Structure formats: structure tokens, C-alpha cells
């Protein structure tokens, strides 16, 4: 999991960065000291982090070494630092000695260009891993592939049995021989059609870079592109849904219908919990859903959905949320992805997620800290509730909603986290009692 350099350590390393920058420029300590009006011995103490530095002297040193003051005081950008730490801690066998983790700041100070390349490569690796996971998920659950494979196996079974008869029965009556020849021809044609259709399917997938194919995936991709936040609907309500859909790329008719349903729900949620007051209230309680239930009139699912629709970052520091919604059959009907918490594209997720437990206890909110097999932890709030109109004698349509938020690595937990996985097809927890097959 990503780590950030603690502020105290950043400060302590300011001297090291000054020294590295000076050495990179080939300047003598005495020359630099003279240019900023301090003694060489004092600069030496600063460079070895034995004197704190700030204010005018830091600005003078930065100016003398032609570098942004922030580069000396803050070190490398926090996101770059996280990327480089992630690269060092990726668990790959080193080709040489292990990475000198305690000298990352020094490395960054001397070779900012290389740091950028390492960070970019780390991001690329993470993106490719996500793509591979998506492909693996698709192969395991793709209904088109599963159907095609069943068709091909049936065809091959017919061809094998029929050809075996033709070979092993030399005295076969003419009427049977003719019938089996016709059957063989039919099955060969069918096999050819199936193989061609399967190839077309893979070619279509191969031509895509986003691995998106179903209407649900296209809608989720459009939501991802918008950051799951739609200012036009926040301002204009349901009347703006059509305009937002028109601006979405890659939607066919089916996906557009699905998007309309999702965005109409979004607009209804926004009308019940308007952005301004809700964002302010959420920021005041560190975006904790439990503290916002009252604002939602007791509708927990509404609060969870609304938190997942807030604009990430910003002045209020909205955290990155993940969201999963399933129907009463457990089928995942909407997802907002969050890094390190994989939610399958097809098939079921992990039976131990509160999302599914909530279905067994409608209207009872649940909270748990979940731990993925790689150690990443997430706080999960879940509830199941009926959607749409209900009435006496009517069967309610139930949906469960689960909101996810990453738990900081150093946060102490009152009790141990619940070990979960990304769904059995991709989960390495072989001994799990909830494992399917």
C-alpha cells in the first residue's frame, strides 16, 4: 500500500536535499555559504540536518542553487514519493542489491528525472495489472465465452461420436451412412460458425483498450470518466439528465437507458440531500456515514450513495470512495471502483462482504473493516433496503449498497479486520469457509 513520507522526516531531510543539490551543481560548500551570507561551518551543520532551516535563509539558498524552495523543504511531490515507495516495495526480486529506501529523498534530489520515470513506470505497471485482472475476470465469467465453449464442446462431442461410428462400422447400412455423413457436415458447419463468432468476439475485445463491453460496463466507464459526480444534475436536477447522457461517450441505446435510470436516481438523491449543505456536513464529520444518517432522514442507503457522488479532493478533501450495489439475487448492478479493492465484472463478489450480509438483515446497517489478501484494509458500510414503490401485498425489490473507504495503514483498530477477498475466482484464500468450489 502507498506510504507518504512523514512531515517530520521531510523537515529533517531538508539539509540533505540542500547538500545533494549543491553537489549536483558542483558547488563548494564555502562558496555557497558565502553567497547566502553564512559561515561554511554553519552551512555544514544545516546540510547534515543538525540545524533547522526555514524563512529567508532557505529562500536565499534556493535562489543561489536555482531551485524552487519547496523542492528543498518538501522534497519530492507526495504522489511521486508514494509511487517510488510502491515500486521499491512491490516485492519484485531485485536484480542487484536491495533498494536503499532510506535514501529515496537523496535520490530524488539528485535525479528528479529518473524519479519521474520510476514513478511513471510504477503507475503503468499498476494500470497493466488492473487490465490483466479485468481480463482474467472476463475469462472466468464472460457469458459469451462460456456459451461459445459449451456450443463447441457439444459440436465436438457430436463429431467425435459420429466419426467414430463411420470409421468403426465398415458395413454400415447406406441409409445410416448417409445420415451420419449429413450430421457430420452439419456439425462441421456449426463448428465453423461458432469458431468464427468466437474469433469476432475476441477481435472486438482486442480492439478495445478499455475492456468495456456490456451496457453496465459502459455506464460505469462513463461514470468513472465523470468522477461519479455530475455538476449539471446537482444544479438542474432530473431535467438535466438527458443533457448529461448526450455528453457521455460510448453509450449505445441499451447503455443510455441504463445511464438514464442511474442518473435519475442520482438526481433524486441530490434533491433529497443537496450538494452544498451535505458536503459541508460531511466534511465536518470527516465523511463518516454514521454521523450523517440523521441528515438523510434515516435513509442509510441514500447517505452511502450520496457520499460516493461527492467530488473527490477539492477544498473539503473528499476521500476516494468505492461503491457496490447488488440486487436481491446478489448480482452486482453498479460499482464505483476504488484502488486495491477488486469487484468482479461478472459473477459474484466475496460472500463475506457486508454487502451480502446486509441482504439477510434488511434495513439493518452494518459496518466492518475488511482486509484483502494483499493486506489492504477498507472500512465498509452496508445496508439493504427496498427500492421503488412498495405496498401491501407487493413483493419489495431489495437492493444492498456498500460504501468503501481505505483505512490508513497506521490506523489502530479496535478489533481485528475481517479477512475477505475479491471473489472466489480470484481469491488466494484456499482455506476460506465461504469458498465456492
Amino acid at each position, binding site marked *: 500500500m502507498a506510504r507518504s513520507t512523514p512531515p517530520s522526516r521531510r523537515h529533517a531531510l531538508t539539509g540533505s536535499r540542500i547538500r545533494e543539490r549543491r553537489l549536483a551543481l558542483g558547488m563548494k560548500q564555502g562558496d555557497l555559504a558565502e553567497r547566502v551570507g553564512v559561515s561554511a561551518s554553519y552551512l555544514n551543520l544545516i546540510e547534515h540536518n543538525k540545524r533547522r532551516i526555514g524563512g529567508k535563509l532557505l529562500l536565499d539558498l534556493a535562489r543561489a542553487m536555482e531551485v524552487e524552495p519547496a523542492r528543498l523543504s518538501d522534497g519530492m511531490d507526495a504522489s511521486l514519493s508514494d509511487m517510488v515507495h510502491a515500486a521499491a516495495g512491490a516485492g519484485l526480486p531485485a536484480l542487484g542489491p536491495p533498494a536503499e529506501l532510506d535514501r529515496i529523498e537523496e535520490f530524488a534530489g539528485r535525479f528528479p528525472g529518473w524519479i519521474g520515470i520510476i514513478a511513471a513506470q510504477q503507475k503503468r505497471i499498476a494500470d497493466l495489472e488492473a487490465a490483466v485482472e479485468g481480463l482474467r475476470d472476463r475469462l472466468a465469467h464472460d457469458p459469451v465465452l462460456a456459451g461459445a465453449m459449451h456450443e463447441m*464442446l*457439444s459440436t465436438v462431442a*457430436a463429431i*467425435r*461420436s459420429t466419426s*467414430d461410428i463411420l470409421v468403426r*462400422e465398415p458395413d454400415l447400412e447406406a441409409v445410416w451412412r448417409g445420415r*451420419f455423413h449429413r*450430421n457430420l457436415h452439419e*456439425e462441421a458447419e456449426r463448428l465453423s460458425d461458432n469458431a468464427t463468432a468466437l474469433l469476432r468476439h475476441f477481435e472486438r475485445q482486442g480492439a478495445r483498450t478499455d475492456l468495456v463491453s456490456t451496457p453496465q460496463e459502459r455506464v460505469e466507464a462513463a461514470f468513472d470518466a465523470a468522477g461519479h459526480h455530475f455538476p449539471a444534475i446537482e444544479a438542474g436536477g432530473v431535467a438535466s439528465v438527458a443533457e448529461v447522457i448526450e455528453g457521455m461517450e460510448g453509450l449505445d441505446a441499451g447503455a443510455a437507458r441504463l445511464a438514464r435510470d442511474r442518473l435519475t436516481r442520482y438526481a433524486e438523491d441530490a434533491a433529497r440531500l443537496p450538494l452544498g449543505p451535505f458536503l459541508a456536513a460531511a466534511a465536518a464529520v470527516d465523511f463518516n456515514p454514521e454521523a450523517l444518517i440523521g441528515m438523510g432522514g434515516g435513509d442509510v442507503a441514500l447517505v452511502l450513495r450520496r457520499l460516493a457522488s461527492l467530488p473527490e479532493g477539492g477544498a473539503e478533501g473528499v476521500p476516494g470512495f468505492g461503491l457496490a450495489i447488488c440486487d436481491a439475487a446478489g448480482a452486482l448492478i453498479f460499482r464505483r471502483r476504488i484502488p486495491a479493492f477488486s469487484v468482479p465484472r461478472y459473477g459474484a463478489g466475496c460472500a463475506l462482504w457486508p454487502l451480502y450480509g446486509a441482504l439477510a438483515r434488511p434495513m439493518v446497517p452494518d459496518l466492518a473493516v475488511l482486509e484483502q489478501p494483499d493486506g489492504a484494509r477498507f472500512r465498509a458500510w452496508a445496508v439493504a433496503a427496498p427500492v421503488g414503490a412498495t405496498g401491501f401485498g407487493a413483493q419489495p425489490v431489495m437492493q444492498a449498497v456498500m460504501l468503501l473507504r481505505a483505512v490508513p495503514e497506521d490506523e489502530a483498530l479496535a478489533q481485528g479486520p475481517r479477512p475477505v477477498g475479491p471473489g472466489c475466482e480470484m481469491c488466494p484464500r484456499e482455506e476460506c469457509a465461504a469458498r465456492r468450489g
Partner: protein
Amino acid sequence: MKGRVLLVEDEVNIFEAISFILSRDGWEVHGHGNGATALAEIARQAPDVLVLDVMLPGRSGLDILRDLRRDAATADLPVLMLTAKGQTKDRDLALALGANAYLTKPFSNAEMVATLRDVAGAS
């Protein structure tokens, strides 16, 4: 004649091939291609042994097997299940539900004949 076989299989060409080889082996073979009406056909025909495909239109072969085992009249009917290669879960479930044996498609004719004889207790 070794006995009456009911082959519940919706793929016509597979049915014709299996029907032919089982007939040559001395069985009286009847066929049915719809899962939804299979139980009624089984009751009507009262076969000595049943060959049952898992993937059927109308109703899964596994559901049909489950009902057969719950009915005293068919609880002991010898059943040979046909599953697709790679569908380990179908195979395991079939055995758990009380299938006497299974064959995975694509199978050889010799395997079919030998397994059916074994399931039916015929020689």
C-alpha cells in the same frame, strides 16, 4: 436386449450417434429433448437406465436429477450424467445429487458403452 435406455439430450446429432451405438450394443433406446417435460417422460417410459444431459432447454439436468432422487419411484433409477469438459462443478454436483456416473463431452463411444453397462449393472 440389455434393457431400456431413455436418453435426455437436446442435441439431435449427439442423440442419433449415441442412440445408434447403444442400439448396436443391444439396448432399446428412446429419446427426449426437453428438460421441462423430462420428468413426465421418465415416469411414462419407466426406463431401466437414464442418460441425462446437464444443459437442457427448459430445465437443468441437475434439477431433474434432484427430483428423481426425492421420488421413491425413481430414487434408485441408474443415471448416467453428461457434462461438458471443464465444468468440474457440474460433475461434482451431479455425483452429490446421486448420479451413478458421469461422462464429460466430448467422450468416446467406447466410453459411453462401457459406462452405461457399468451403471446399469449389465455385462
